[in-house]
């Protein structure tokens, strides 16, 4: 019941429409402890002014009371009309801090000062948006588990100008970030012989030179036949050296090989460590997980595909990790 009230009052729920513009219905405002203190001080001052019949004292108290009221409007105004566009968050490894970028646009002629953004339970990011300008803020989220992270609603807060009031809003754009398993450093497993040579044909081996072919985007730049290219640039823009299966071995990072490591999360971590190690060594590698496998290859796109598979392993694609 209370939760329902909160939902209605604070209009909780995702924002599907972009950009998110903070309208008055979305901004909430309450006095802060400093504001309460200010009111109490004014009360005491008023009593003093009455007691000593200080006419200027009355004037001062009334001016300051007016200042308090005006501040309320200005605190609200600091948020009202701000336009928020979510950006794309770069994937991180579990345990690292994900940063969700927001583009903030201020169409007003005054600067919006000291806006703080945070996800519940996380550190804040503060930013000011220049007059008639845009800026970016990256909101940190300390990740713990792998998966597709949805950080949930943002608490946007500001106490500018005088700190007497706190205005806040709960923008909830659709945000997500891929969290890879935390890598466990382990030595790479030995390559395995190719059981069926036909299986490895398309991917190419590492050892025996088998001729030249036109470069495809997935080819490692190390295999470009620079000499051949230099000989006849006009005819063949880029040629790569094509290798046959080498010694008949290829590197398979196989789920089964991590059986001795412990539970599933640790095994995924070990696999992640292997992927990173193989990528760093620029060795072509394949990944085998229960129910899926990725053929050996190398390059950033391949690595990211492998990491994504590891991050999402066991998660149904539509049930990502809920935001805390």
């Amino acid at each position, binding site marked *: 019941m209370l939760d329902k009230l909160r939902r209605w009052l604070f209009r909780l729920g995702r924002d599907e429409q972009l950009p998110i513009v903070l309208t008055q219905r979305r901004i909430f405002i309450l006095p802060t402890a400093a504001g309460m203190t200010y009111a109490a*001080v004014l009360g005491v001052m008023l009593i003093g002014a009455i*007691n000593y*019949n200080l006419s*200027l004292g009355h004037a*001062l108290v*009334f001016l300051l009371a*007016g*200042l308090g009221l005006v501040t309320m409007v200005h605190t609200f105004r600091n948020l009202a009309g701000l336009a928020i566009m979510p950006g794309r968050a770069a994937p991180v490894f579990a345990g690292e801090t994900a940063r969700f970028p927001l583009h903030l646009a201020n169409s007003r002629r005054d600067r919006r000062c000291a806006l703080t953004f945070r996800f519940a339970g996380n550190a804040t990011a503060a930013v*000011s948006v220049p007059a008639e300008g845009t800026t970016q803020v990256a909101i940190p989220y300390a990740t713990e588990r792998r998966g597709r992270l949805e950080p949930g609603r943002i608490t946007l807060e500001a106490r500018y100008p*005088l700190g007497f009031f706190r205005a806040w809003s709960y923008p909830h754009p659709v945000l997500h970030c891929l969290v890879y398993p935390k890598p466990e450093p382990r030595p790479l497993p030995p390559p395995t012989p190719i059981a069926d040579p036909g299986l490895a044909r398309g991917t190419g081996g590492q050892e025996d030179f088998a001729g030249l072919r036109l470069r495809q985007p997935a080819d490692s730049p190390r295999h470009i036949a620079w000499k051949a290219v230099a000989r006849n640039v006009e005819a063949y823009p880029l040629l790569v050296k094509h290798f046959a299966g080498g010694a008949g071995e290829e590197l398979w990072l196989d789920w089964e090989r991590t059986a001795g490591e412990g539970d599933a999360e640790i095994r995924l971590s070990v696999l992640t460590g292997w992927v990173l190690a193989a990528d760093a060594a620029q060795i072509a590698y394949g990944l085998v997980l229960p129910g899926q496998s990725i053929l050996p290859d190398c390059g950033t796109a391949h690595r990211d595909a492998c990491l994504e598979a590891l991050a999402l392993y066991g998660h149904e694609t539509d049930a990502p990790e809920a935001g805390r």
Partner: protein
Amino acid sequence: MRRTRPKPAVEPLERACVPWLLACAVATGAPHVEHLPLWLSALAAATVGLRAWLWFRERPLPPRWQLALLVVAATIGIYFQYRTLFGRDAGVALLVLFMALKPLEMHGRRDAVVLVMLGFFLLLTHYFYSQSIPTGLWLVTAATLETATLIRIFGGHQPLPSIVRYAGLLLLQAAPFMLVLFLLFPRITGPLWGLPQDAYGGTSGLPDTIAPGTISNLVPNGSIAFRVRFEGAPPDNTNLYWRGPVMDEFDGQRWRPAQLGRLDPATIEARGGTVTYETTMEPHNQRWLLALDAPQAIPEQAFVSARLQAVAFEPVRLRSRYTFASSLDYRAGLSESRALLNASLHLPSQGNPRARALAASWKVRHADAQGIVAEALQMFSREQFTYTLQPPLLGDDPVDAFLFETKQGFCEHYASAFVFLMRAAGVPARVVAGYQGGELNPVDGYLVVRQSDAHAWAEIWRDGYGWQRVDPTAATAPSRIERGIASALPESEALPVMARLKLDWLRQLSYRWDAVNNTWNQWVLGYNPERQREVLSRLGLEDIDWRGMTALLAVLCAAALLGITLWTLSQRPRLDPVQRAWSRFCARAARLGVRRHPWEGPLDYANRIAALRPELGEIAATAATAYAEARYGGQGNNAVERLRAATRKLPYQWRPA
């Protein structure tokens, strides 16, 4: 003991905020130096200076226990200075002490907020001592500074002018609320409870005893005693005798009022029309109200005493307004009580033998009082009496010494000697202190009576005539009564500057300044329940009570708040900044003869400009690239700036080469 703050939740205070806070401490504390003990001012200056130095050298703040020791020591010092910690002055001293020490204990944002609040409070305490216009202006300045400090604390770095401008804007918007609250907040005349002993220190006014020097000491004091506004033309200067304390007991040196027990009010019989006037008294912490002789109608909070004074029930501790009607031609005390007449004949049994002898000779020569009075006044005008502020000292027989030896004196000498002679000759007489004359300010029509107009004169009682005023000073220095103090004293004597102004424009200026001050006093400082009623009835709200006022107040404040809110929300988001900047560029370029076609992209447009007006080619290319980058390149902030800069570089008018 040297430990860091325990709570990690403390919001840190930016280093750059510290100078702001120190400025607040100085702005709110410094004006108090005037009435604080020197050691406390020095201590406060030293701690603020120390804090500034620590800030400059980026040193850590002193540990808490050292500060605690300092606070305890200084509090003890204040206790010994004022013998209390709870009076008004001691309270102010404590506040200043805290204000000066707080910067040394300023770790987080919360400490800074506490300091600013303390500053607001300290601002109020200035009005214990002065509520003049300069103090009021200082209020505005200091409040702006404190607001700016809060903006700096909560808003992070911004250029100084924009912070100050924003603080000014906030206060400007607060002003309507101040006005509404000031006018409509139901006023109560304080105090709500007993005030400390020292609440009304430092007021000057007529003394309650008269001896040589008591009045003349007041004369160099140019401060205002009261202001009067007459209904109709003000009476002649020679009629402006403002009656203060009346003295009828003489001990050989001093005159003071006799303790006679309960006396009936004086009977006054008016013999002409009355003059009605409103007096605005500066507080003098005494009960006499200084009405013109003789008061006919007096305000509710006063009565007419047996000695013809208008006396308030309570000492005048605030600037207050009283309305009187006086009859300048009157008979008073025709059937005066025996007790008072006896008191008005009493003399000490010994002393001043020559004066007694002289009076005895007059008594023999004249049967009635009138002859004796004439004799005395003739003596004052005939012989070489001098009117001076600096008479020589008189000995044990002051009347003899004055009358027969020095012959120099101020009004109290004349009045006192005259009354002595009268009594010695058997005529009931008494000394009256008060003010005489005043200066009409042509700017606002108020008659201003200053302390320098203080005067003492005499009254004698004659059967069938009652009490009659005799001013022996008039016999010696008639211009004192006709044209004021400045004309009666030699040039060399010390007088307030204003009393002697010869420069016409300066005098005009002083009249104007005084009129402004008077308006301030009447309408701002003197805004009390009565004035509030007066103002509201002038606004058409005759019978409004405090409930009505509160309701109206709430409505008006809500309206003002709504106005400001609407102003806020009416600032519709305009075109986005990039688009605006680009439109501005296009408009400027169009004025130079190349109008952008609606279908034309930025780069094409730039190329066309370059083709038609080669000298603008470079600027146009920069602008178009910047626009394209800002529009399509994501991180557009810097690009917008470049676009604006390029726009600024365009010439305003096309000058054919």
